[in-house]
């Protein structure tokens, strides 16, 4: 029996285990929209296509599943670009389905036509234009396979209207075979053995982990390895939650706004063991001063991440979980581990000194400090919430003051730094986990970039909480202006035209709360957390509070501004 393209598409999604589709309709995608009610997908109608992609991304990061969204051609498709680039930079598995004008019209500058395959090529892992309904099932299958395997990423499938409206015999491909796509999963054994010997020779070793640990689900293996060898661990922004933030071996985040002890330890270490991280410039600072004394080992599933920015001594291409599992097995046969752990005593003492020299701190006075709000959120959620952030100061304070113990609990745009990510991502996470507490820690600038999704949260009764750290500025840019641009706050003061966030929330049918004094913070949070509605919390905070420590761009990471 023949099936239409729309039916084939939805059948394929079903077989991929898709449960949720974040979507926004339009002319070119109508055959699919029309077919949707015949299926039992949970469909979330967003209010802007960018919101759809970020929500699918938040869903994917929180659940570990592939996020799916469905939008129309032209502007619908181009509105996904920021979301695609965000997911691409952070290696998040998405399948983005875009409508396209009918194949005979492609290239004719038809109404709502955009060459989205051309536009999205550099910000997707792969993309497809389906030109024949007979290719559809194979392409959807491949799209999911590519999105979730190897180093995951977003895949876009462009669907001309005559393809989804067309019909053919449905044949589901049994397996996927793509000649040019064979990710390396198992690390090279001799390299792994060399790595272990190098680690065991080190006197001042550090483990440096990134988002790859979370993607690979290798947190437990990493923790066991760190404990077995008693090696301190520092995390990138994307790696937070990959190793428990409250663990005695945790040094916290490193890099531009990393902790003093993490940055000092990395600068002084004689062995840097990088796992699922990519030596990003916000981590390394000045590249020739990054871990200058250290031998370097690097595990990554993506060969292009290795020796891209920093030369490493032992590269290991493979899945973090598989490689760490092999290392654990080999280490169990090693004698002298007790001795090794003991030999690191001096190193741990040194790190303790750094820890006590400059702890993360702030002074809470009569005005609410943003860090205080985050500490209270941490305490009141017992560190168990799913936290999303926007980008800027709100994001860095979250990374510093909320200690993430579990993977998939911090959802943040690390690589692209997309303002407006956090709120729709929180909606996606709440869809994945309706019972859990999901909080977007936002700024008054970034929350306004996708504020329209309040309607989505209200529409689907998603009790997402938004904590706006309202300082009246685009705070991180203001901080750079303060430090490096003569305190000239050009284009960064937005407070004079700020909306009344409480009224705004109420206008959408959500709850709005405000705290202007430190003693109001806890009651507002308590009220928000017990309300089964979306809540916007407006915390009026110190306008010119800065994020510290800070490594000026391009400086060595041990040259931190500490106040």
């Amino acid at each position: 029996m023949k099936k239409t393209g729309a039916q084939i598409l939805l059948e394929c999604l079903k077989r991929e285990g898709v449960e949720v589709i974040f979507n926004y309709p339009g002319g070119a995608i109508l055959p699919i929209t029309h077919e949707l009610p015949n299926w039992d997908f949970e469909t979330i109608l967003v209010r802007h296509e960018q919101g759809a992609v970020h929500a699918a991304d938040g869903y994917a990061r929180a659940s570990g599943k592939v996020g799916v969204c469905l939008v129309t051609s032209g502007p619908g498709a181009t509105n996904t670009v920021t979301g695609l680039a965000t997911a691409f930079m952070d290696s998040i598995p998405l399948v983005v389905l875009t409508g396209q004008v009918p194949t005979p019209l492609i290239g004719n500058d038809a109404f709502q036509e955009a060459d989205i395959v051309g536009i999205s090529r550099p910000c997707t892992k792969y993309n497809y234009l389906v030109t024949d309904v007979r290719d559809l099932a194979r392409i959807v299958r491949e799209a999911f396979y590519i999105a979730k395997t190897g180093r995951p990423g977003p895949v876009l499938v462009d669907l001309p209207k005559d393809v989804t409206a067309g019909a053919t015999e449905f044949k589901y491909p049994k397996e996927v075979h793509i000649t040019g796509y064979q990710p390396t999963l198992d690390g090279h054994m001799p390299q792994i053995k060399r790595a272990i010997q190098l680690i065991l020779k080190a006197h001042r070793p550090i483990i440096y982990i990134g988002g790859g640990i979370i993607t690979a689900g290798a947190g437990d293996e990493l923790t066991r390895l760190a404990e077995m060898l008693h090696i301190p661990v520092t995390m990138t922004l994307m790696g937070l939650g990959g190793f428990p933030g409250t663990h005695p071996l945790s040094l916290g985040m490193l890099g531009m706004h990393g902790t003093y002890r993490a940055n000092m330890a990395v600068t002084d270490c004689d062995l840097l063991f990088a796992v699922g991280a990519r030596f990003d410039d916000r981590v390394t600072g000045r590249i020739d001063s990054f871990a200058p004394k250290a031998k370097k080992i690097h595990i990554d599933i993506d060969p292009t991440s290795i020796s891209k920015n920093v030369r490493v001594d032992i590269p290991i291409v493979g899945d973090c979980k598989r490689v760490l599992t092999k290392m654990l097995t080999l280490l169990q046969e090693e004698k002298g581990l007790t001795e090794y752990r003991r030999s690191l005593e001096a190193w741990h003492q040194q790190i303790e000194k750094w820890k006590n020299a400059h702890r993360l701190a702030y002074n809470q006075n009569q005005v609410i400090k943003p860090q205080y709000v985050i500490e209270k959120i941490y305490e009141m959620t017992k560190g168990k919430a799913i936290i999303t952030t926007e980008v800027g100061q709100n994001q860095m304070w979250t990374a510093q003051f909320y200690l993430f113990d579990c993977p998939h609990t911090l959802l943040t745009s690390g690589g692209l730094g997309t303002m407006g990510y956090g709120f729709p991502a929180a909606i996606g996470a709440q869809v994945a986990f309706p019972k859990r507490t999901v909080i977007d820690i936002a700024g008054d600038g970034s929350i306004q970039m996708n504020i329209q999704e309040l309607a989505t949260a209200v529409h689907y009764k998603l009790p997402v909480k938004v904590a706006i750290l309202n300082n009246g500025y685009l705070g991180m840019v203001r901080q750079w202006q303060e430090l490096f641009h003569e305190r000239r706050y050009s284009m960064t003061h937005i407070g004079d035209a700020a909306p009344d966030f409480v009224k705004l929330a109420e206008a959408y049918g959500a709850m709005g709360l405000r705290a202007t004094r430190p003693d109001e913070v806890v009651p507002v949070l308590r009220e928000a957390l017990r309300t089964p509605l979306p809540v916007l919390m407006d915390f009026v905070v110190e306008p010119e509070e800065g994020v510290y420590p800070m490594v000026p761009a391009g400086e060595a990471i041990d040259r931190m501004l500490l106040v």
Partner: protein
Amino acid sequence: MRHTINVLVENEPGVLARVAGLFSGRGFNIESLSVAETLDPPVSLMTIVTRGDDQVLEQITKQLNKLVCVIKVMDLVGKEYVAREMILVRVAVKPETRAEILSITDIFRGKVVDVSPKSYTIEVTGDEEKIKAFIELLKPMGIKDVARTGNVALVRG
């Protein structure tokens, strides 16, 4: 340093754009690129001539390998290989230069493939040095147009 890279790719629409986009997006340089179908029609061979230090070349080959549409990447530097390019040159002819042009063409084992009252179009195939020498010799006669294929290359043996 200059590198010649052979890349086996899927013979599909958009593949050239993916490869070219990778070079432009990451600031790599393409000196020449030629591409055509292999004996196996779903597969094409690209020969790319590029330049960069070891680290850049390592990234170029890794990034090419990472593309889903790329089947195999071979950097020919350090290997024995032959590389050839074909050019078409339209050169002005006058009664007093005609004989010399024909004799240069002959020496370079070229062919005159089109004749008009005022010009010859000459086809020559060779490695980089030979092509360069040929062009230099014809320059004084007045070259009107040049079309080059860019290198194609194969490993010896």
